[in-house]
């Protein structure tokens, strides 16, 4: 048989919940095999079983025809299986080399031989075209670079089979191109790949075959040459899907947000936002496109008062807000759906109900002379929960217990309910499934239609293109271009985000 990996009838439960129900996946030598499914369908679980992080309740795994029992990642490594995880498994304070050799250290006389290890890392990275600086600290390098380190980790361990779990979710179009190139190189070198992705285009571009799972069950495996994106999508969701968000023409009015010459320093003292100018009008959605690390996070934190700005002006409805406190800014009419919902958006150990009044707890009717009125708080919570379809056992449930999508809906409900003039949505759909994404996009557009200004930050170009009325491209802390989503393409945007000027970008994408 030419299957290098066979996962047969795998079943994995989490305390009664069946995450993988009788799933079969067979990987041929030298192929790129896509694994497709909605959020929570069980893809990561299946791969974690293969990698030895989870033990299946049922089923058999064969490597090159031999039944194996993979009880921990070491065994997977020994069998030539490597995995690039969805959430990077890197130790921030270590260098690239240290991360790569961890667990398989090169030693001379009991001491880690970093020189030798660095040389080995450099060799592998050159062989597969994965440029990294072996001495750099993980916390200092870009997300794309971090991913290359993840790949190197598997290659360093001599992986023959590499599992990629949503590798492109965090990358820019250019980086995705490079990644695809890398995968092709790997195949050429005789490796086999399992690729998990939500992006059908990528599957169509690189994969040979695709296994689809839905709600923990295997739906089947198709040859990519015999299918198309629509078919894949409907296999995945179980119904027909549209890819375009419906919306009416925007009717922009007066300026709501007006940012001039904004300068923000990062902790190292570098101007990470460096003279940024941007206006957002009432009744429009402005999308900010850019590669992670070009200042978008700091830009938002400066607007919302979470970070000190060095210089410039941030006006809301004509009023200067720069370096005001977050409370003052919130109360002047700014809503903020934060990028990291666990870090900023929610107090996970509070009930979802108390999270609904995180900014307004000190206002009537939620409190009076400093004393909370829980009746009113939970009344409000119930209203928002039903209005925004937050699936939770009750309003007293801890926010921690909700799934990501429902947590996000709760935050959005809270922010919209405060009726802000400017709504900032930072990566509002990251990691959510199609249904939730659709819901959130509708809400953003609804806000726009009510005459609010909406500022959308996303690394998903699809999202930016579909939802925005204007796209501002950020590069090295400046807005380098404003483009009309109808008149641009992903390629052009990608090049702009990588720092090419407008004209070049246009030429390249036409070429």
């Amino acid at each position, binding site marked *: 048989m030419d299957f290098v990996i066979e996962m047969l009838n795998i079943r994995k439960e989490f305390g009664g919940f069946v995450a993988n129900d009788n799933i079969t996946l067979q990987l041929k030598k030298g192929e790129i095999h896509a694994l497709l499914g909605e959020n929570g369908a069980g893809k990561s679980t299946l791969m974690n079983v293969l990698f030895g992080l989870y033990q299946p309740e049922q089923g058999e795994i064969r490597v090159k025809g031999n039944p194996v029992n993979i009880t921990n990642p070491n065994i997977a490594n020994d069998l030539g299986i490597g995995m690039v995880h969805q959430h990077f498994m890197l130790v921030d304070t270590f260098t690239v080399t240290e991360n790569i050799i961890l667990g398989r250290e090169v030693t001379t006389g009991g001491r880690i031989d970093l020189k030798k290890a660095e040389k080995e890392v450099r060799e592998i990275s050159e062989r597969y075209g994965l440029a990294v600086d072996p001495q750099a600290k993980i916390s200092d390098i870009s997300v794309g670079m971090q991913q290359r380190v993840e790949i190197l980790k598997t290659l360093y361990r001599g992986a023959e089979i590499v599992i990629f779990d949503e590798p492109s979710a965090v990358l820019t179009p250019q980086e995705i191109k490079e990644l695809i190139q890398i995968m092709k190189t790997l195949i050429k070198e005789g490796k086999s790949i399992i690729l998990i992705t939500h992006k059908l285009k990528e599957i169509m571009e690189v994969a040979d075959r695709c296994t689809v799972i839905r709600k923990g069950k295997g739906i089947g495996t198709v040859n990519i040459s015999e299918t198309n994106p629509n078919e894949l999508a409907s296999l995945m969701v179980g119904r027909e899907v549209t890819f375009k968000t419906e919306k009416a023409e925007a009717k922009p009015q007066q300026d709501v947000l007006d940012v001039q010459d904004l300068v923000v320093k990062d902790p190292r003292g570098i101007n990470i936002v460096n003279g940024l100018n941007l206006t957002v009008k009432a009744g429009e959605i402005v999308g900010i496109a850019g590669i992670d690390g070009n200042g978008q996070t700091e830009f938002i934190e400066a607007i919302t008062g979470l970070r000190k700005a060095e210089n410039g002006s941030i006006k809301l409805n004509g009023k200067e807000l720069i370096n005001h406190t*977050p*409370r003052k800014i919130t109360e002047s009419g700014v809503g903020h759906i934060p990028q990291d919902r666990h870090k900023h*958006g929610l*107090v*996970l150990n*509070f009930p979802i109900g108390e999270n609904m009044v*995180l900014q307004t*707890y000190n206002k009537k009717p939620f409190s009076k002379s*400093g*004393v909370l009125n829980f009746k009113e708080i939970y009344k409000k919570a119930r209203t928002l929960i039903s209005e925004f379809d937050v699936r939770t056992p009750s309003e007293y449930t801890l926010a921690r217990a909700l799934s990501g999508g429902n947590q996000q809906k709760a935050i959005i409900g809270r922010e919209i309910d405060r009726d802000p003039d400017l709504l900032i949505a930072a990566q509002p759909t990251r990691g959510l499934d199609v249904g939730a994404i659709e819901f959130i996009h509708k809400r953003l557009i609804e806000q726009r239609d009510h005459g609010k200004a909406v500022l959308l930050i996303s690394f998903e170009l699809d999202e930016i293109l579909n939802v925005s009325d204007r796209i501002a491209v950020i590069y090295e802390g400046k807005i380098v271009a404003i483009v009309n989503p109808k008149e641009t393409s992903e390629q052009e945007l990608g090049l702009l985000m990588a720092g090419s000027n407008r004209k070049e970008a246009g030429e390249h994408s036409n070429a």
Partner: protein
Amino acid sequence: MLKRFNSILTPIIAVLLGIIVGTIIMVVSGYDALAAFTALWNGAFGDSYYFGEVIRQVTPYILAGLAVAFAFRVGLFNIGVEGQFLVGWLAAVWVGVAFDLPKIIHLPLAILASMAAGALWAFIPGLLKARFRVHEVIVTIMMNYVALHVSNYIIKNIITDNKDKTDMIKETATLRSDWLQSITDYSRLHWGIVIAIIGCIVMWFLLERTTRGFELRAVGFNQHAAHYAGMNVNKNIILSMVIAGAFAGLAGAMEGLGTFGYATVKGGFTGVGFDGIAVALLGANTSLGVFFSALLFGALKVGALNMPLEAGVPNELVDIIIALIVFFVASSYIIRVFLDRFSKKEVK
């Protein structure tokens, strides 16, 4: 329902396990465990006098426990209760001996002074944490030693003329009551217990029912989210330490105005502040929990004094039992796993 039941059952099981292991230790060491526990019981509840002494001991434990618990709820580890306790004790006694005022003014003034002193002592680590991100654990440890030496110095050189002990506080500043003493056969029971109970209620109300408490809890769980929500994280950090320090200072006042009525030069720490850590942890950092665990600690500590005399068992045994209880409470995860398994079987 079952869950709630289990969460009450867990500490009870921890206490039982502590007692069982304590018994085993005694039996192995050749002591008469039954006699020891009888002596313990008699020493705590055998007599209205001892019961009064238990309550007397419980009083500072409650407040010291609250001082640890309050800071914990805001995400800070206040190992400095001992120092805040000492300065609170000193301040209360100082006011108690230095002024001649009507009771209605004098007593509250002495109490307020103790709170202010404890609060000030805790303000420093709070400020340093908020302003310079200095680890509060180190600063509070250091402040304990500073409190010890400074209060000794003040007693010797400022309040008294090179004596080891201050005068008795004036009658108008005392928490003692003839009536309370008479109903407990002349124990040192004093009105402080009422203050301690009020302290519990205040902590509960402040944390659970007020907007300020909402902020404090939010900061305790997630500073980033609190900042995002417009709360002043630094102010809340400082405030939490200040309030915790005020509780600790109050605990000192219980000793200064109630139990002792004076302050002495000390060769070392009293241990009340450190016991407060165990009280708070056993009480899961809630005010009700602190109340009950202080009760348990107080009874064990006072009762233990009777063990060597009546049963010939070293009273350190009680320290072992207390430690085991804290240990089992900490390991309640494993107890809960057993309980869950047990209750599941029952259902089946």
